[in-house]
Structure formats: C-alpha cells, structure tokens
C-alpha cells in the first residue's frame, strides 16, 4: 500500500476511483460504527470538514478513536482534534493550515507531537491556499495560480507548492496543486438515505471536499425524505453520487456547534484542550475514560452531563437553549423543512 502522501496529489488515481463509484441512488444508510469500520482504513489521509468545532463530525472522530485506527494523516483546515490520536498511534503526520480552537487556545497533543517529533508535519499552508487546492480538485484543474503565501516561510515548508512567474504579467504567482484526500467525513443537518446533504450556516470548503475526496461518509442530525431535500436544492452542499455512507447521528457535532440546533459546550471544550489533554498522561486518561470507556457518542454525552452534575436531558437542553438564543429563532437562514421535530429524549431512548 502506498503512503497517503503519494496518493494526495494523484489526479489519475482519484479519477479512476470515482469512475467506479455508482451513480445510482442506493440506500447507503448504516450504523456509524459500521461506516467507520468500512471506510476509515489505516494510513488514510483524512481532511477536516465544517469549520473546526462548528459542524465538525466529532461523533465520527470519537468513533475513529474507539476503533483504534492507525497511522492516519490529518489535513487540518482548520481543526486538528484528530491529532489527539497520535499518542496512541492513531495519527502519524499532518498537512497543516490551522490547528487550534481560536480563543480557546492550542490543541496540546498536536503541539506536543510536533515539538517532540512524534507527529510529522508534511506541509504548511494558509487557509486560502489549501482551500484552493480543494477547489482545484472540484473544478477539474491541475493547479491554480494564487497570490497567497508568497514571500513567506510557508513556501519553504511546503514541498507541494511552487512559485513561478505568471506567463502573462511576469509577476510571481504561487501554484497550488489539486489535492485529493482519501477520506472526508461530514456532519450535516439533514441528509436523505442516498446522501444528498443539506446544511444551514457556513459550508466553508465542504462541497469542494466532497468532490475531491475518494471516500465520503455523511453523518447527519436527521435522515429526511428525498422529496424534502429536493424541494430546495439550494441548501444541498453534498450530492448523493460522491457519498459512500449515511449515518443518522443526532448531536453528532457535540461538543461542537450545530448551527441553529445546539451551541457548543464552551466550558467542556476549554477543559478538554486546556486541562484533560495538557499532558500525555492526562490525554491517555481522557481517551481511556471517554473513548474506550464508552460504547457510543451518547454515553459520552451522558458522562459529560454527569460531570456537570446535570441530568443528561437538562444538559442537552441547555445547549439547545443557547442555540435557540444564538441561532434558532433569530437567524434568517433557517429555511425550508427546518422544523426541528425531534428531541434528545427520543434519541436517548434509542441510543443509551
């Protein structure tokens, strides 16, 4: 098997793979465990989707940890939560545009791994540069010429990009090649069983990523009818033909944010990145307790609620109410079919 980096810019391989994907609308619904077991292979490059902790497929990431996948290569634009797996062999290296949680700081395991040399950085990017590499793949371009990253040390720490003179103007331009990650996992608001996926809020790079990646797993808050999705194609960001698996995972972005549904648990995130993950020992304990010590996402949520001395339903309700204030009632972008028609109670009954 080739190294993930050898596949990353191989447009022929990417095309051959996609030529073989079925265009038929087939039922792709499966359990999250099955989807991760089937589509996440050791050594895969995995690109982050959404915008870090906003609409990030965190339930799927935790499941990757549970299944002890090995030697993944992260593509962080932005994000980096998966770097937590490197200390138990889950991630060997990364291509980086941004790893962190903004005001809440750096992600300690990533920092540690780079500083002690156990997590390799294969290439350095700007957000715009990496976004263009994905866009190039989506648009069928070998590369794009852009005006980012010029003159900086990023050029020196990225073996994939080149600076050349624009043949028309003679000015330096930065060439960014089309990138084809092995795997992308998305978390969306609604999907139909074929994989057509709809969101509210920012799509960031998701449409480009869905086309660029070889394997695509969609987790969603709710599986809805295809007619519902097709009643408003404007909100669809991922079309069915690139999707390999659809998993219904309510609260799948927890403890991150799902626009209009639930707000991120800011306190928990701060505790995780600043305290639990601060040392290798702490990280190991956290993984043992929260990942290996839980059967699924909902046990993890229940555990977090318990630590807040809250009943899990009250805990989730609090996050939903914050979202209500922040997004649900007031946002103009809550569109067709957007009635929230489920509650954590139902999910909990099913899952726990």
């Amino acid at each position, binding site marked *: 098997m080739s190294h993930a980096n050898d596949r990353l810019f191989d447009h022929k391989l990417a095309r051959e793979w996609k030529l073989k994907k079925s265009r038929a609308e087939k039922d792709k619904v499966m359990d999250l465990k099955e989807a991760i077991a089937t589509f996440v292979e050791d050594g895969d490059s995995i690109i982050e989707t959404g915008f870090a902790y906003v609409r990030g497929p965190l339930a799927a990431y935790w499941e990757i940890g549970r299944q002890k996948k090995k030697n993944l290569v992260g593509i962080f634009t932005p994000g980096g939560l998966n770097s937590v797996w490197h200390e138990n062999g889950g991630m060997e290296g990364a291509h980086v545009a941004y790893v*962190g949680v*903004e005001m809440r700081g750096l992600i300690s395991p990533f920092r540690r791994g780079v500083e002690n040399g156990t997590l390799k950085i294969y290439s350095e990017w700007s957000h715009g540069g990496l976004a*263009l590499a994905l866009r190039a793949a989506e648009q069928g371009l070998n590369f794009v010429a852009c005006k980012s990253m010029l*003159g*900086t040390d990023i050029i020196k720490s990225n073996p994939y990009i080149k600076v050349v003179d624009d043949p028309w103007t003679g000015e330096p331009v930065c060439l960014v090649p089309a990138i084809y990650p092995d795997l992308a996992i998305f978390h969306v608001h609604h999907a139909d069983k074929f994989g057509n996926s709809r969101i509210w809020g*920012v*799509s960031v790079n998701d449409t480009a990523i869905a086309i660029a990646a070889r394997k695509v797993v969609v987790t969603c808050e709710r599986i809805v009818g295809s007619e519902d999705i097709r009643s408003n194609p404007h909100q669809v960001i991922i079309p069915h033909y690139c999707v390999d698996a659809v998993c219904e995972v309510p609260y799948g972005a927890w403890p991150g*944010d799902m626009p209009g549904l639930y707000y991120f648990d800011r306190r928990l995130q701060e505790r995780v990145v600043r305290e639990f993950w601060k040392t290798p020992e702490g990280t190991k304990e956290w993984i043992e307790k929260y990942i290996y010590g839980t059967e699924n996402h909902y046990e993890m949520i229940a555990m977090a609620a318990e630590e807040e001395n809250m009943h899990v339903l009250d805990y989730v309700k609090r996050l939903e109410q914050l979202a209500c204030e922040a997004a649900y009632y007031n946002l103009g972008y809550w569109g067709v079919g957007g009635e929230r028609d489920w509650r954590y109670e139902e999910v909990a009954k099913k899952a726990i």
Partner: protein
Amino acid sequence: MSEIEYTPRELLACVAARMIQDGESVFVGTGLPLVGALLAQKLHAPNMMAIYESGTIDPKPAQLPWSVSDPWTCHKAAIILSMTSVFGHSRAGYADVGFLGGAQIDMYGNINATCIGPYDKPMVRLTGSGGANDIASLCRKVIFMGLHLPQRFPERCDYITTPGFLGGPGEREKAGLVGGGPWRVLSHLGVMGFDEETCRMKLISYHPGVTPEVIQEFTGFEMIIPDDVVETPKPTAEELRILREEVDPNKLFVF
C-alpha cells in the same frame, strides 16, 4: 469634570474602533478585533462591512460571536459563500482592512503564528496561518493586535507565517504580493505604524501611563520614535457607553 475610568481592554477596543473608517470592509478575527469593529459600526462607521473567512459577508450579529464561524456570523448576512470565494473577493479588491493577531511581529511587520524556535524542531508549535496569510497577502491594509513584549516584538520573526514588508522596501512587490501590507500595530502599550521610506515600525502614540522609553524597552528592535509622538487619546464617555451597553454587555471579551 471627573476623570473617566476605563480598563486596559476597553482602551484597546476603543482605539481599534477608531482605526476603522466608515464604508470599509473588514476581515475580523474573534475577540478584541471583533469588538472594535462592532463598536466602530455603532459609532462613526455605520457602513462598515465585516467579512469572515468562514464565508459570511456583511452580517448583522445581534450578539457577539464567539468564533469566526459562530452561527451569529451568519445572522442577517448579505451572502454566505465558501472560503475560496471570500479570499477571492479580497484579491479582487473588495477587502480593505485585515485585523490580525499572532505570537510575534517583527520590525517590518511580518507576523509569526507557526512556531517559536526553529521550524524543524520548535520550542513551541503554534496554530499555523489559518486565514492570516491570505488576509495579509490580499487586503488593502493590515492591523496587528497583540501583547507588547520584547520576545513578541523581535527584530526578525522565527518564522514568517504572514507577510509584512518581508525584508524591507520593495520586497512585497518583488514577491508578487498584491495587498498593501502592515498599516497599524495596536499593542497594550501603544499604537505603531510603519515608516514610508524604510518600512520599519515606528511609534505613533503611547497609551496613557506609558512612555516612549517604556515602549522601546519592551521592543526587541530599535523602534523609530518620531518627535511628534503623542499620548493615545483616552476613551470618551460615549465610546465607553456604547461598548459597555451595546457591544459587549456581558463582558465576553472586554472586561
């Protein structure tokens, strides 16, 4: 008249707000830059337009967003696009001001957000560029906000993540950069700009209670200190009222 009382962060928010002119489009990061931008909008720049790298343009958030991708950044936005589009619009000429932070800024306004120490074996690994490199490469002008300490204001950054004037005059053009580069530096000690001839950082004003000597002492290179440096004007009662009552009433960022 009794002396108006304010905190250091309130001063920074007000000074940041004054740097934004009416009608400008501004790439805002979370925290103080965002507070400054929203304050400017409520004071003298009602037509200020915010751009977020996550893809939203010109929203009217009714509550302070916690992050550049917080759903509040979508509230009543003019449009929501992809990341490549917002940077594309910047290249096209629709972005005026970029508000950035970082671990280090050097005498030519280059910013480091990647690592402290050598890149291959860093003492501290930082976040990496995010959108900062794109913003500083493409916007008309850049404002940097950060703590003023000698190691954070070195002569040369350990790693240039985000381009300032690179090695000096003419280097941005030579590198092919289209944006205008660094314009202002706002630290907890003062406001700096850049000398037109040498492209080196120069002092414009020192905050109340600070002197040019203190600023030099907390700077890792020789700061140009012109004769006409002044004290940064204190926040006005009106600025503080809007800031406290309307922009950040819950004291999320300004306390």
